[in-house]
């Protein structure tokens, strides 16, 4: 079965197609932040170059975040629209999983760190298991200090990856000695690879069941009562 992977949860826009033979084609642009303008032509380009018709696809995989609101929305909307129109199922995978997966050959704790803006980051922790990685610390959002405290609490050899680790390199290294390298953005190729193993187990959902992971501060009512003029 052919899977189309759409990844737009960070600054990067990525599209990949693959299946049982592995990843066939990939397109990535990490500059410009024009998710809406790039995504549809990218899908068209990848399909054309790999000589694949949209109707050949059996499943749409999408990065469900956490990450940029604006980017995720474009990716999710496009992915859902395609799946609905083609009447095929979907698989949603977290951006943190996608960052950790390419580091599955290290025996260190893998810590994907994604820039959440305003001095905060999203992170989670993974360790190597046969065939991939397994989450050992739940996804969290918080200031860099909280991430450093989490790393110190574990005090294990760690590998930090992602645009958050890249941006806050000095702050992280000041607080905890670890390595910062590896992928900066989640890759659509990893998305297709992870989705393929789930597709084999038929672990997919209908387009309406895919939800983004915002992982943000708890929702609160706006206190409009303080405004006298609110009718």
């Amino acid at each position, binding site marked *: 079965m052919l899977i189309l992977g759409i990844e737009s949860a960070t600054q990067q826009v990525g599209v990949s197609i693959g299946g049982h033979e592995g990843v066939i084609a990939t397109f990535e642009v990490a500059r410009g*932040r024009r998710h809406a303008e790039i995504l549809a032509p990218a899908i068209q380009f990848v399909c054309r170059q790999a000589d694949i018709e949209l109707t050949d696809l059996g499943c749409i995989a999408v990065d469900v975040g956490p990450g*940029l609101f*604006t980017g995720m929305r474009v990716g999710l909307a496009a992915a859902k629209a395609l799946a609905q129109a083609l009447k095929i199922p979907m698989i949603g995978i977290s951006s943190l999983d996608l960052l950790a997966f390419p580091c599955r050959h290290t025996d260190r704790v893998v810590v994907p760190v994604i820039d959440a*803006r*305003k001095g905060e980051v999203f992170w989670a922790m993974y360790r190597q298991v046969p065939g991939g990685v397994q989450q050992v610390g739940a996804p969290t959002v918080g200031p860099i200090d909280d991430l450093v405290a989490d790393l110190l609490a574990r005090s294990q050899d760690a590998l930090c990856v992602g645009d958050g680790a890249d941006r806050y390199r000095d702050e992280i290294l000041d607080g905890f000695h670890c390595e910062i390298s590896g992928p900066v953005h989640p890759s659509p190729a990893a998305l297709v690879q992870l989705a393929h193993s789930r597709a084999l187990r038929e672990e997919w959902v209908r387009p309406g069941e895919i939800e983004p992971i915002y992982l*943000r*501060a708890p*929702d609160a009512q706006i206190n409009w009562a303080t405004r006298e*003029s609110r009718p």
Partner: protein
Amino acid sequence: MLLRAASLVDTCAIASSLAGLARVGDIIVLAGEMGAGKTAFAQGFGKALGVTEPITSPTFTLVHSYPCGPKLTLHHADIYRLDSTGDVDQLALPELAEFGGIVLVEWGDVVATGFGDHLEVRLSRDEVGDGAGGADGDDDFGLDEARLIELQATGRSWSGRWDRVAYGLEGYRC
């Protein structure tokens, strides 16, 4: 910094002066009662950035975007209709600012803590300076009456520009 705008023309001139100092990534919160002149301020601001379309209040559409050249878009948001901070978060206004935008947020003061560095522009009617008319409700707000405009910066982003802000608006200081 407290300013006094004697008329609508002054409000637009103050907005225009701030627009000249604004840059990509800025979030400017517009606070004040109904009819205080938030939209008038946005119109003066947009005109100074070269927006030629008419700027209207985005109360029902939440955000209006006006391209001002190849690398800048002015986003004019109004969160009056929203009831929860989660709804405001989903508009991703800081992301719009970061990605080549300047964002004006009407009523943004109710959730300003979520915006990080920003400038607040608080508009109110000048009760003292303006003798005419009653003080018994928004309906009596004449559009061309005097306004008090208070500027307050949160975070470092505006502090480096504060001297120029003060210089440009010297004539309106109270």
